[in-house]
């Protein structure tokens, strides 16, 4: 995706969100809606300016990282998916079990292609266990345990 497309897509998204924020505020009491509507109005106009500037070729510069963007985005996308799954697992199996699964999956995504993947994952698992124990048994945080509770 080019910088211009990103700018335009971002402007459109912000336009939609600010429009929603403005319209939704109509249902609030008068003093509760003033601030969100004022801010949504300013953001809407600013996003409109951004969209127009982008269309006429004067949009802001976006730093695009060099390198193989396809591979990078694939790794990042997979990682985001894994993060969402990890989060969804927390109420089901608890924070520790979800953490172990999450660290292994993320470790495989992150370290793939590097030397010492197994060692890195083991180090990560040990670190996770240490920090879990610290919070659970020293700071007495009652973590969710899910089906293991």
């Amino acid at each position, binding site marked *: 995706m080019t910088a211009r497309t990103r700018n335009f897509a971002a402007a459109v998204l912000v336009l939609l969100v600010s429009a929603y924020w403005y319209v939704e505020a109509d249902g609030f009491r008068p003093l509760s809606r003033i*601030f969100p509507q004022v801010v949504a109005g300013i953001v809407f106009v600013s996003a409109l300016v951004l969209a127009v500037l982008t269309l006429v070729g004067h949009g802001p510069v976006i730093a695009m990282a060099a390198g193989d963007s396809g591979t990078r985005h694939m790794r990042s996308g997979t990682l985001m998916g894994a993060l969402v799954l990890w989060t969804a697992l927390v109420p089901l199996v608890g924070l520790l079990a979800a953490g172990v699964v*999450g660290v292994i999956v993320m470790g495989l995504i992150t370290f793939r292609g590097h030397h010492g993947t197994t060692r890195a994952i083991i180090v990560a698992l040990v670190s996770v266990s240490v920090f879990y124990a610290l919070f659970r048994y020293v700071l007495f945080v009652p973590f969710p345990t899910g089906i293991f509770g």
Partner: protein
Amino acid sequence: MLTQALMGVLDPISLLLIVLGVSAGILVGALPGLTATMAIALLVPFTFGMAPIHGLVLLGAIYSGAIYGGSFSAILINTPGTPSAIATTFDGFPMAQKGEAYRAIVTATLASVFGGVVGVIFLIFLSPPLARASLSFGPPEYFWLAAFGLTIIAAVSPRSTLKGLIGGGIGLLISTIGIAPIEGSVRYTFGTVALQNGIALIPALIGFFCIPEVLRMVEESHESGTVIPYKRQRKMVTRVFHRLLRRPWLMIRSSLLGTFIGIIPGAGGNIAGLVSYNEAIRTSRNKSAFGKGSIDGVAASETANNASVAGALIPMLTLGVPGAPPAAVLFGALLLQGMRPGAELFTSHGTITYAFLFSLILANLAMLPLGILLGRGVARLMQQVRVQTMAPLIIFLSMVGSYSIYNNIADIYTMVGVGLAAHALRKAGFMPGPIVLGLILGPIAEQGLTQSLLMGRARGSLTAVFFGRPISLILIVLTIVSIAAPIVVQYRERHGKGGTLKAMKQLTQEHSEDSV
């Protein structure tokens, strides 16, 4: 109160936390990819269970240590560990290439200590009167203060003023989620009870500053550069100390620039370092030496960036407007401890606040022995540790930290949701700094606006309330200047008169992702 504060900071636990915090900060700062903001955000939940003094002492020590730690990678691998050290690379790395790595590190250390201590002295003497002045702030003044804070952060946004402004607006919009402060309408909760209290600040800050960094370090997946080895040399500290003593104006000017630039919301250590470096060149008799390994270049940058740490805390402690992203996270930590920025911080919570300020002096002084002693170990770790290996652990700590504050699983969802959104926004050129400032200033701005409206209705004149008070007028002028300044700068750039500013902006864009 001051004696109690001194006793509080001199107790063995506080001293131990200062040593641990500065050491950890140096390590975090030295590893490119890990930021001071991330370290502080991850540590806030740890400090929740501590006594407030100890928690703040630890966070302050990490902040100071991390900004100094950035100089190690700037000097040894030509990559600033934190954006604050951008200007340090210009002369630090050439010094290392000439075999003067240790001299550069000692210079950075002494300059950081000097800048940091001067900044804290200003913090100690400026904050109480400013906090007292904040007592004369009414709702209109707070509204204009928030407006000024947002326009100035938009103005100094590294990529685009317009995007900085939109980013701040997005933060303000997020801040309206939950029950309205006046009239109590339930806003933008999508029927979710968990959102009725609004977006939880600390999980949101962890999401903003940790998740995008982790995703970026995995995406970029770069190997650490080759670290230039160095050996400690006897009497180098004394030699560099005497050399810097012969440059009193350079040191004082850089400290003042760093402190006052740090005060400006959004203009963190990176801008302080670059401006100070530029001034060092401008006022030098030997301009050609800069960029080729000038000790003055390293000193100017490092003095200013560490002075900016204390500078960024001045508006945060007195007015609740953070000067930099790490200060925004410290703001969250203060709220978590039940301490609200303003005059009360220097009266009711005076002992804790002054202990925190005194601890910053000790943290800066501790950087001298710790930086010299740990330096070579840090350099070895820079060579051996791939920051990507820490990604899963950082995510786990982000989850544990978000959950443990209120023992609420919804805070994990908030943290992850905010983190993914912040990553997407960053890809589109919206940096987290303005968004976070908007999130923090939103409640101040909204209360200021709505209460001013009520005052105006009661008095029969909105104009008198919004525009008729002296402090409001000063803030309005500052707001207009902060909006107009980028336009003037762009005009000068187009007409070839803003070379330095343009170059600085480009440098900030190249090296900084708004992470400090």
